[in-house]
Structures are given as C-alpha cells and as structure tokens.
C-alpha cells in the first residue's frame, strides 16, 4: 500500500496574480499585427467566410420576402391548420358535417355562417374538413412520384443506350394519356378508396419527374466534375446520387410545389365527376352535389369551389416565389 502524499496548505506554491504581466500580454496579442505582418490573416479569412455565408443567407431570405410569396405561405399555413386541427377549428365535428340533418339548403344564418347544403350539412364545416382528404392524397403521392421519378430519370439519363430508350418509351406511353382519364380508370379498377387514389396519383406522377430530371442529368453528365469523380474512383451509383443529383435537384423542388397544386386540382376534378372516396368530405363532390340547386342555394357550390381556388393559389404563389428565389440569374441582385 503506498502512501499518497498531499501537500499541506502552507507548502503549496501560489501564483501571484501578475496583473502587469497580463496587461502586457493582452496589449501584445492585440497589437501584434502592427509589428508582425500577416499575424491575423487566418482570423480575418474565417471571419470573412462567416460573413459571406450570413450575407448570402440574408439575400436568399430577402428574395422570399415578396408580399405574394408571403401570402402564399400564409394561405398554405391556414389550409394545413384546417387539415390538422379540423375538429377544433370547425364549428361542427365530422359526424355532424357528414350526417343527415334538418334544414337542407338553408341560406346563411346564425347557426350556419355560410349556409347549409345537401342533407343540412354545414358548408363551412365541410370546407374545413375537405382540406384533410386533399392534402392527405396530394403530399404522399407526390413524394412517392418524386422519389421514383428521380431514380428512374437519373438512371435512364446516366446510362443512356437501351435503358434510356426503354424508360423513355414507357414515360411517353404513360404521358400520352390525359391524367384525369387514367386516374379515373385506375380508380374504377381498384375501387373507390383513398389509398387507391393515392396509388393512382403516385404512379401518374413518376413519368413527369423522370423526364424533368433526365434533361438536366443529360447536360450534367458531360461536365468535368463527373469525370473527375470517376477518376477519383467513384462508382456509378455514387456519381449519380452524390454528385450529379444535388446539382440537378432545383427544377424538381420547384416542380414539386407546383405539382401539389396540380394534384389538388386534379383530385377536385375527379371528385366532381364522382370518382372519390364516398365516406370522405371532398370539395369537388360538394360542388357537384350543389349544382342542381345552383339557382336557389348557390352558397353550397360556390364556397367549396372557392376553397379549392384559394388552396391551389397558395401553392402556386409559393412555387412562383421559390422559382424566383432560386433563379441563378438573380444571384447578384
């Protein structure tokens, strides 16, 4: 067992606080640049780099600050609030908005601020609940089509040859159909449920994104950085998805936003024709149902349609704002 020695209090050497020495070292540190050239260069370069990053972030955000884009973002925010918090926002809950009540087609009054439609259902509540089905179908479907469309498009453009030819022929065939018609056919085959509607739109969106990214990848394929990556030993998949893809993603992002609006419009069209899930609340369906009573109860058709217009307008405004913000020509503005 060893004995640990500990210094007693009185033997500890104290460091006297050398104020004068610390003042001198502070002066030397801060005024060294007057004497020694190039001593603060590294500091300055790092600070400049940080400043440039900050300034470019500010420029990007300032390009988003146009009043129209902010309106678009606010509209989207409101619609998402309607969709997520529908039971708390709307005056009636889902069962009351979907039930059979008295007072059908009544004009706007105290109980029903926007009037009632078929079976006495409140128009405002149905407007709010309708956001759920539209957003629930649009967002996952488009995400799916973007992912798979990008994968197929990058593979087709990068390899070229017969893979390109086959994938392009398949996209041509799928794009030759009007989208609404093909979606209607899918739904009538698979059955009128919301999962099938999502699948139909997911499949229909893939050829569009494949074509979109194929053009960019074809251009990027012959650029020097691809060759450099290959020389450095990168395999094909790595080049495709780590090098080329991030540079070609910009039109995809813009198209994504526009496409959400497009899918919501298309969905409303299908619902208008009757190809929707009958247990859910859909704006297009309400519009079609109210058409018979258009002259006596216009509020039943006109308000749901207005909601479709405003929702799609919000996404289009955001898409326009994004496109202007990401435009490479405006980088120095």
């Amino acid at each position, binding site marked *: 067992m060893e004995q640990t020695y500990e210094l007693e209090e009185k033997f500890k050497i104290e460091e006297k606080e050398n104020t004068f020495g610390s003042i001198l070292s502070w002066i030397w540190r801060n005024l060294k640049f007057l004497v020694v050239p190039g001593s603060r260069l590294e500091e300055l370069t790092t600070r400049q780099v940080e400043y440039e990053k900050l300034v470019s972030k500010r420029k990007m955000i300032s390009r988003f600050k146009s009043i129209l884009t902010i309106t678009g973002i606010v509209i989207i925010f409101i619609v998402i609030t309607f969709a997520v918090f529908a039971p708390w926002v709307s005056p009636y809950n889902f069962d009351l908005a979907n039930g059979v009540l008295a007072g059908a087609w009544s004009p706007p009054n105290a109980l029903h601020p926007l009037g009632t439609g078929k079976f006495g259902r409140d128009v405002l509540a149905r407007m709010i609940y309708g956001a759920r089905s539209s957003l629930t179908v649009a967002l996952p479907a488009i995400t799916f089509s973007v992912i798979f469309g990008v994968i197929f498009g990058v593979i087709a453009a990068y390899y070229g040859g017969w893979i390109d030819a086959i994938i392009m022929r398949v996209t041509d065939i799928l794009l030759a159909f009007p989208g609404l018609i093909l979606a209607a056919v899918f739904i009538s085959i698979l059955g009128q449920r919301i999962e099938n509607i999502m699948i139909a739109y997911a499949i229909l969106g893939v050829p569009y994104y494949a074509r979109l990214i194929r053009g960019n990848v074809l251009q990027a394929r012959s650029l020097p950085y691809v060759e450099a990556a290959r020389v450095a030993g990168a395999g094909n998949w790595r080049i495709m998805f780590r090098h080329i893809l991030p540079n070609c993603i910009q039109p995809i992002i813009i198209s994504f936003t526009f496409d959400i609006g497009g899918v919501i419009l298309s969905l409303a069209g299908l619902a208008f024709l009757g190809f929707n899930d009958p247990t859910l609340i859909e704006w297009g369906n309400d*519009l079609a149902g109210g058409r018979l009573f258009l002259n006596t109860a216009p509020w039943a058709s006109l308000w749901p349609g207005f909601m479709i217009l405003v929702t799609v307008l919000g996404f289009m405004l955001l898409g326009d704002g994004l496109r202007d913000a990401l435009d490479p020509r405006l980088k120095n503005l």
Partner: protein
Amino acid sequence: MSMMSYLFRRLLTMVPVVLGVLTLTFILSRMMPGDPVLAYLPAGKPDPVLYRYWVHELWLDRPIIVQYFKYIGDLFSGNWGKSVSIAKGQDVWELIMLRLPRTIDIAIFSMIIAAYFGTKTGVISASHRNKPRDTILRGMALVGVSIPVFYLGVLLQYLFGYILAWFPATGYKTMDYGDPAFVTGFRMIDALISGELYIVTDYLYHLILPVFCLSFITLAGITRQSRSSMLEVLEQDYIRTARAKGCAEKDVIHIHAQKNSLIPTITVIGLNFAGLLSGAALTETTFGLKGIGKLLIDAIRQTDYWVLNGLVFVITIIFVLINLVIDILYAVLDPRIKY
C-alpha cells in the same frame, strides 16, 4: 422531300408509343368489371345459348394473345363493337363519330383563342415587366392556373346564365331547333352548307360560355410560359445590340424577340392539348354538352368496354397527329432544326 422523310421518321417513333398505349388500354379495360358480351344480347335475361354463341363470335374463348391481336386489328379496321351500357346495342363507331365533332369544335375554338391571345399577352407582360399592366396580367394568369375548370364553369353559369341571363347556361342548341342535314357531322359546317344561318348563330351563342371557360385556363398557362421565355429572350445579346443600334422598342419586340420566344411556348401549347381533353371532359359535364369527354367519363363510370377501347384509340390518334403538327411547327419556326 426531306420534310416527308422527317415526318416519316417522327411517325416511326410514334408507332411504339401508340402500340404501348393500346396494349395498356387492353390490359386496363380487361381488368375493369363488366361483361363485354352483354352489348350483343337483347334486353332481359341472357339466353345461355346466345351468350355462348356471342362469346365464340367475339373470340373471347381464345387465348389472350390471340384476343390481343384481334383487338388491334379490329381497332384499325373500324369494327369497334357495340356499346354495353351507355346506349345499349348501338354501334360504337356511330356513337363516337356523332359526338366527336362537338368536342373538336370546342377544343379548336379554345385552342386557337388561347394560343393566339396567350402568346400576345405573355409578350406584353414581359415587355412591360413589373409595371401595372404586367401585374394585372400576371394576377389573372395566376388565378386562371389555380381555378378548377368546373368551378369557373359553375361561376359563369350562375353569373351569366342566371343572374344576368346573357348567355344560355347549358346545352349546345335550343330545344326546338333541329339538326342540319348531315354532310360532315360538324354542326356549323353543315348548317352553313345547308344555308340555315340561325342554327350557326344559335350554336355559337351556346358555345360562348364553355369556350370561354376552357380557353381562359389554357390561356393562363400559355401566358405564364410565354412571359417566362420572352424574359429569357429579352436578356440575350442580340436584343441589346438591336437597341444599341437604335431600333424602336416595338420593333425590337415584334421583329426580333417575339419569334424566338415561341419555341418553348409551342411545347407548352402541345402539352396543354392533352390537358385540354380532360378539361373538355369536365367542361362538357358542367355545361351538359354531348361530346366525347363526357362519353369517356360515362364509359369509365359504367365500365362500357367497347366504348372505352374505341375512345382511347381515337384520343391516341388525335394525340399523335397533334404531336406531328407541333414537330412541323418546330421545324418551320427554328431554321436551325434540320429535317
């Protein structure tokens, strides 16, 4: 001569697409519920002997590949079967050919108005960038792109059909007017040939609202694309040179810039044509016009096998022809494209 070989080569690339579309339709329509034989049987309970006879007549008992080739052969030879549920027993060829001219009327009117005014509006919007004219036009274009076709139709019906009562809300003719003698199937042309001008004016009067509805939306999309491509053209060096040489601004736009901005715009016009058909389906449903858009939707709804096949064939042929026309226009507008 080289134009013909260019067309021929374009047609050749279209052949696999057409075959692919027909194959896809064959697969999809076979998967749809509904019995195609019922069109040939008289009403009431189907007689088993007659049923088996027709199954054999229609080759429905042969292997699926043989049925596929009969399907392709039938489509190209005009034997499109009989309708199952929409108009029971009526020949599909007659059904489609009766309604096709009405949709073509609407589509051509809308396309011409939308293309002409859309490119002009886009050019005006781009040349007065960020001024009040541009802002208003851009706002209208944005609304036009975001509004559903049927909502605009219902609004127009309510406003102009009911409140103001300037235009008829539905239909393509007033009830007591008959049809002109059949020459081409196009109501306007037939009425002009037979001299019944009141039918022509009545038809146009009924078509104003649907054509406005469809063309407004197509016009909005074309305006946006035309504005965007015109802005790109206006940044080019040769425009700067023209201005530096003292060219008047209107000449810069009309003589130098406008034609160069047309190529991406024509692509969008061509792409919009596929959308025009689905838009026509919605417009026809809203305004109660009897065209092939509504027929298509009814065929899908009531799973009418023969009508669906015939319609998809017609739509594909039209699509191929439109693409050919667009390609010819490309070659005409851009002298750099060699046949």
